């Protein structure tokens, strides 16, 4: 059986959106897929050594909130100082209670399973990011390098 390939582009840098790329990549690796994640724009936040990911209900009417707040809590109040930190803390607690892995843990499992992590060099330059802030083993490349792998992949996802 020839090894299947999965190519993912991760573009989002919030706590909730950190999950799909790492869940799918780690699972694919466990199923025997050769897997690459290309991190671009805000997705680069998922490659920082010190993860500081947050989640906010602001601009996200689909996000369930405690006590059904998404149904009655005025949207403008979700912009209040401290709301993002509170919602992030609550989400992390809920995930831990339900046995959902932390982003850190899933990322480590990806690294362990030899999922190749590639940072978009252009984004690093654009936002003056410091390569030393990123995890070990991260490679830096551009769009052409992504296509070299993605062009041969069986599944290609933009997240």
């Amino acid at each position, binding site marked *: *059986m020839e090894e299947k390939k999965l190519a993912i582009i991760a573009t989002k840098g919030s706590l909730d959106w950190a999950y799909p790329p790492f*869940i799918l990549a*780690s*699972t694919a690796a*466990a*199923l*025997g897929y050769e897997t690459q994640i290309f991190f671009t724009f805000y997705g680069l936040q998922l490659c920082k050594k010190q993860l500081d990911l947050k989640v906010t209900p602001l601009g996200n009417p689909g996000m369930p909130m405690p006590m059904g707040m998404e149904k009655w809590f005025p949207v403008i109040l979700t912009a209040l100082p401290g709301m993002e930190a509170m919602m992030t803390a609550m989400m992390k607690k809920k995930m831990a209670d*339900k*046995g*959902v*892995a932390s982003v850190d843990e899933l990322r480590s*499992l990806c690294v362990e399973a030899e999922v190749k992590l590639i940072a978009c060099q252009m984004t690093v330059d654009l936002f003056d990011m410091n390569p030393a802030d990123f995890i070990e083993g991260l490679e830096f490349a551009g769009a052409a390098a992504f296509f070299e792998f993605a062009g041969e992949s069986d599944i290609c996802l933009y997240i």
Partner: protein
Amino acid sequence: MADFDEELDASGLNCPLPILRAKKALAGMDAGKVLHIIATDPGSVKDFEAFSKQTGNELMESKEEGGKFHFLIKKV
């Protein structure tokens, strides 16, 4: 339940951890050995079927007992 060689308790863990832990446990076992996995994630029933189909490791048994899911997987 048939005999098994190693046991993995993935109770309380949610997708995709039971699969990832099982993969890791199987990696440390010899071919033909059987892993018994215990899980509480209802999604794991379909997931272990899919895992078995895609990796070739044989899913010998899958059952629910006492609110937990039990799987026997033979390493290929």
